[in-house]
C-alpha cells in the first residue's frame, strides 16, 4: 500500500487537523467526540442540518459544512459509521432552537446510529427529524435487502436543504424538501479499480486489468455486473439507461445532473463522460438546468464515476442557486 499518510490509525484525525488548519474561516473541529461545525454555529432561529458517515468520501460530508449547506458533519473511521455520541454532541453544538434535521445515507450502521442519536437528543428536548437517502438504482431487490444505498443524491440534498434552512423554513418544511429530493433523485456508479482502506492495507476487491464493475457502491460493494471495459460513450449510455428508466425521467423533465468522480479519475475523463450524458439527455428530451462535474462523493482513490440525476422544479433550482460557502462548494457569495 502506497498512501500519503503518516499512520493508518491516524488518517481521520490527521485529515481533520488539516481541514481545521485550511479553513478556520469556515469551520471548527471537535476531536472528542469527532465532529465539524460551521464557524458561526449555532445559528439562532435556523433549522440546523447535520449529516455524517464513514470517512473516505471527501469532500462529503465535512467539506460541505458552512453557510448555505451543512451546520455539522460527523466523520466515522474510513468507511465506518460514526457513533451516536458524536451525532448527539454535534446536534447540540448546532441546535439553534428551531429543530435539527439529520441527513442519513441508507446503510444499516448509519441508520441505527443516527436513530439512537435522535433518541438521545429527543430525550433532552431537541426536536430532531431524520431523512434517509436511498438513491442507488444498482440495488435491484430493495424489498429483500437493507434497501437501496445512499449515494450521489446526498450531495444535491445537502445543498438544497441547506439553502432551505438558511431561508428560515421550518423543520417540517425542510424535511419535506429533503424527502422530495430523495424521491426524485437516482444514481449509479461504476469502477475501473478498487480502493484500499488504510487500516486494511490491501485492495477491497480485485478487478482484472481489462474489467470494470458496473453498479459499484461507494465502499466497493459489489454492483450489478462485472464486464470488459467499454468506451466512455457505451458506459454512459448503459448507465443512463439504468438511471433514467428507474424513476423514470421523461421527456421535458428539468434535471440537476452530477457527474461525480470516485477519487482516482481525472477531470478530463469526467468531462468526456459529461459530454456523452449531455448527448443522451438531448436525444431523450431531458433538460439539464444545472450540473456539477467533479469529485464530490468519492471512494478513496478508486477510479470510476457515478451519475446522479435529480428531477428539479423551479423552487428546487432556486434553492440550488442560493449562496453557498463551504470548502467543497461555493458560489453566489
Amino acid at each position: 500500500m502506497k498512501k500519503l499518510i503518516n499512520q493508518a490509525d491516524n488518517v481521520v484525525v490527521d485529515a481533520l487537523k488539516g481541514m481545521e488548519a485550511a479553513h478556520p474561516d469556515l469551520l471548527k473541529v471537535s476531536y472528542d467526540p469527532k465532529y465539524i461545525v460551521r464557524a458561526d454555529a449555532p445559528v439562532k432561529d435556523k433549522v440546523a442540518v447535520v449529516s455524517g458517515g464513514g470517512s473516505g468520501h471527501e469532500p462529503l460530508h465535512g467539506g460541505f459544512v458552512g453557510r448555505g449547506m451543512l451546520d455539522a458533519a460527523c466523520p466515522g473511521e474510513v468507511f465506518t459509521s460514526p457513533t451516536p455520541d458524536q451525532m448527539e454532541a454535534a446536534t447540540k453544538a448546532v441546535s439553534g432552537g428551531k429543530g435539527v434535521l439529520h441527513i442519513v445515507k441508507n446503510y444499516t450502521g448509519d441508520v441505527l446510529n443516527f436513530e439512537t442519536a435522535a433518541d438521545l437528543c429527543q430525550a433532552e428536548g431537541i426536536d430532531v427529524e431524520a431523512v434517509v437517502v436511498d438513491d442507488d438504482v444498482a440495488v435491484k431487490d430493495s424489498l429483500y435487502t437493507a434497501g437501496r444505498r445512499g449515494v450521489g443524491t446526498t450531495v444535491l440534498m445537502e445543498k438544497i436543504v441547506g439553502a432551505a434552512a438558511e431561508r428560515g423554513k421550518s423543520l417540517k418544511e425542510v424535511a419535506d424538501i429533503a424527502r422530495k429530493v430523495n424521491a426524485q433523485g437516482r444514481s449509479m456508479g461504476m469502477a475501473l479499480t478498487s480502493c484500499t482502506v488504510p487500516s486494511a492495507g490491501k485492495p477491497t476487491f480485485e478487478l482484472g486489468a481489462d474489467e470494470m464493475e458496473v453498479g459499484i457502491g461507494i465502499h466497493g460493494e459489489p454492483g450489478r455486473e462485472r464486464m470488459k471495459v467499454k468506451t466512455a460513450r457505451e458506459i454512459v449510455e448503459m448507465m443512463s439507461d439504468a438511471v433514467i428508466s428507474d424513476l423514470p425521467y421523461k421527456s421535458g423533465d428539468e434535471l440537476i445532473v452530477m457527474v461525480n468522480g470516485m477519487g482516482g479519475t481525472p477531470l478530463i475523463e469526467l468531462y468526456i463522460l459529461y459530454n456523452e450524458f449531455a448527448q443522451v439527455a438531448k436525444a431523450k428530451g431531458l433538460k439539464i438546468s444545472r450540473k456539477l462535474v467533479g469529485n464530490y462523493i468519492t471512494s478513496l482513490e478508486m477510479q470510476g464515476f457515478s451519475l446522479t440525476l435529480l428531477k428539479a422544479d423551479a423552487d428546487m433550482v432556486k434553492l440550488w442557486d442560493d449562496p453557498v460557502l463551504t470548502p467543497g462548494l461555493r458560489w453566489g457569495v
Partner: protein
Amino acid sequence: MASLEQVRAWIDRLEAVYTENKEYLTELDSAIGDADHGINMARGFIAAKQALAENPPADIGALLKSVSMTLIKTVGGASGPLYGTFFLKAAMTCTGQTELDAEGIEKLFEDGINGVKQRGKAVVGDKTMIDAWEPALTAIKDTRQNGASIAEILDAAVAAAEQGRDSTVPLVARKGRASYLGERSKDHQDPGATSTVLMLTAARETLA
C-alpha cells in the same frame, strides 16, 4: 435473586467471552459481512468493564446504563446501537434496583429485547440476532409463567437461542450488509445471532 455484584460479574464475563471468541465471530462476519464483529464486540466489552471499574455504579439500572453508553460509543457498526439499545432499555426497567428476582430478570430481557426489535426492525427469519433473541424471549416468558427459578429461565433462554442461532445457517439474509449478497448469504451462520447466544450463556453462568 440476582445481585448487583452478579450483574457486574455478567459484564466482566462478557469481556472474557468476547475476547476469547474475537476471531471466531470475525471469521463468521468475514463470510457475509465486513469482518469486524468479533473485534468490535471485544473492544466494546473491554471498555465497558473498564468503565465499571473506574466508576462502580450503585444500582443495576446505573450499571446497565453505563454499559449501554460505552457500547454505543465504542462498538460501532450496526451491533453498537443494537446491543447499546438492549442495555439502555434493560437499564430503564432496573432503575434504582440492587437485586432482581425472576420477574425482574424477565423484565430486564423483555424490555431489552423489545428495544433491539424496535431499533433493528428485523423479524425472525431475516438472518439476524433477532433469530436468537426472539425465541429466547418466548422461552423466558413461558418458563417464568410456570414459576421457574432464574436458573431455569436462563437455561430455557440459552437452549432456545442456540436453536435460533443454528436456524440461521440455511437462511438468505434480508437485513444488514449480508442482505446485499442475496443467495450467497446461504450456508453461513449469522454472527449477530452467535454473539447473542454468547451473551445469554454468560448471563446463565453469572446471574443464577
